[in-house]
């Protein structure tokens, strides 16, 4: 019975993935186009890959994007998790205040946050560059992490925590052993959203960065002036890299497990 019921749901998910990946496949196909067009495929070529590799600004932008995204994700996930846990135990006024403040960067048109931060950094006499870019990314990522974790914390059963204390755990051990595992899905989705936001941000990055520090989005937005399929080539490389990482992450543990089983059988 369970099998039968699973069919429509599987079909739904497959359709969902098809919807999500349709444009991605399109992007990949047009990275091999031999003209500049992004709407008409005129023939196969690797021209745009060559152009991309030759473009040192573009190659550097990959480096900055990845480094900023990873650091911003790690920092904002840690800070966000700690704050969310504290927040779940706070009085309602505090909860309300932080939630509303956190909504601001999500709610403001990006240009407003961007100009606000740019003016703020300059007012503090900070030189715009890598550090201000990173700082800005951490600033706008944390609210997303908190937002993702809060629902999970509200589902949490307080008794579990009390029980852990009764069984002799210190509060922080109880936190680590009981609460964190319970809210892990929230932490993961928070981290994923933070990474995505950082990776894809243009407007804020554009205004808080300094000379020579471009990210992929800057490349994309400024190349649109003259449509440049190198951007598609770049995207294709990203897709490829992600796929490889995914395969490693998902397949390697499976192989290990299989080996382990085999060894156990042998023993």
């Amino acid at each position, binding site marked *: 019975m369970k099998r039968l019921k699973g069919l429509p749901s599987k079909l739904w998910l497959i359709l969902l993935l098809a919807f999500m990946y349709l444009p991605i496949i399109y992007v990949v196909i047009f990275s091999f186009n031999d*003209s500049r067009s992004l709407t008409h495929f005129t023939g196969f070529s690797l021209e745009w890959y060559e152009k991309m590799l030759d473009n040192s600004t573009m190659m550097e932008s990959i480096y900055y994007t990845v480094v900023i995204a990873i650091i911003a994700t790690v920092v904002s996930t840690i800070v966000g998790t700690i704050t969310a846990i504290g927040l779940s135990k706070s009085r309602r006024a505090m909860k309300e205040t932080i939630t509303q403040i956190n909504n601001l960067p999500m709610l403001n048109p990006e240009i407003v946050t961007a100009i606000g931060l740019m003016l703020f950094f300059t007012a503090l006499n900070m030189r715009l560059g890598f550090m201000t870019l990173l700082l800005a990314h951490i600033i706008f990522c944390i609210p997303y992490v908190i937002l993702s974790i809060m629902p999970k914390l509200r589902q949490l059963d307080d008794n579990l925590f009390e029980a852990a204390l009764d069984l002799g755990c210190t509060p922080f051990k109880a936190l680590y052993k009981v609460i964190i595992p319970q809210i892990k899905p929230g932490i993961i989705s928070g981290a994923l959203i933070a990474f995505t936001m950082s990776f894809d941000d243009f407007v804020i990055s554009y205004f808080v960065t300094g000379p020579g520090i471009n990210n992929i989005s800057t490349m994309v937005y400024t*190349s649109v002036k003259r449509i440049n399929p190198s951007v598609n080539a770049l995207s294709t490389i990203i897709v490829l890299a992600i796929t490889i990482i995914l395969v490693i*992450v998902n397949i390697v543990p499976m192989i290990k497990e299989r080996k382990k089983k085999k060894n156990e059988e042998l023993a």
Partner: protein
Amino acid sequence: MKNLLKIALVITFALALVGCGGDNTSSGDNEYGCEVLNVYNWGEYIGEDVISNFEDEFNVSVNYSLFDSNEAMYTKVLGGTHYDVLVPSDYMIERMIDEDLLQPIDKSVITNMDLLYEGTLNKPYDMDNTYSIPYFWGNVGIVYDKTIVDPSDVESQEWEVLRNPKYAGQIYMYDSERDSFMVALKALGYSMNTTNEDEINEAYDWLVELQQTMAPAYATDEAIDGLIYGEKAMGVMYSGDAAYILSENENMAFYAPEKMGTNYWNDAMVIPKNADCPGLANEFINYILTYEASYDNTITVGYASANAEVFEEMGAAGGYYEGNPAFTPRAQNEKDEVFSNNEEVRELISELWIKVKNS
């Protein structure tokens, strides 16, 4: 998940190491007192090897940054970012001179001044090129499909052809208040730099009528692709983009209205007041004027070069853009104008433009 985190950390550290290695390209002292030049230019607006050749020749490194509009660039500079060379358009240069944001070019360094095309020099935004040295230039005109649009219609009606009901639903209007109002004002026979509110309101009515009768698509760069593949039959275009469209689709033609006149534009290199390395900036500007750099720029980007030799060679027989009328814009036509900077008009037009699109 843990594995993913580990991989992520390894990648970061690896990249961080690579990055650190890459940054240490200092070459010791030189006569300019700095080894890094910060250039801020339009996206897709430079030859493939220009930067690396300059770096090799002068033994310095260039931090190359990009912008996508004059105004975004201006906001960045105003926000306190230090660049050494910028490439704004005419009216923006005028504004920056007015606001005392630029420093004079050191003409003693610019030894290649005489290589410049006459038609690009001494324009009203900077009468004697004290602050700016031309980079690319061109006109704005109409790109149209000869198989659908009658060339005699375009040439006789000029800008008014955009409101010819025969071609309703077939046109791209340029999605920028400045360029659209230029078209309307020129069509009405006014100066595109008018400060007369009645004239501007008349232009507004002109655009509203266009919006209501022609159902235009408002686009900037999306129109390039659209015209190459015949999604629409006509569009307002910058000459450099038009040159590219013409080279991709032979049915396409370009016409820059002569009797009504059009916009003559110029993007030029300037040095902001807060530049860290003005000495090297002047050298860079001088380098861009050379035949090699100008040639590389124009071949890659497709806009008309400010270097006279390159410009003439490209359009002449046997040149890269032979017989492509959009590549060889005109610099001397009585009715053509250069944009000037006027803050009040800018605000007014901006608000009217929102209304046009909502009418």
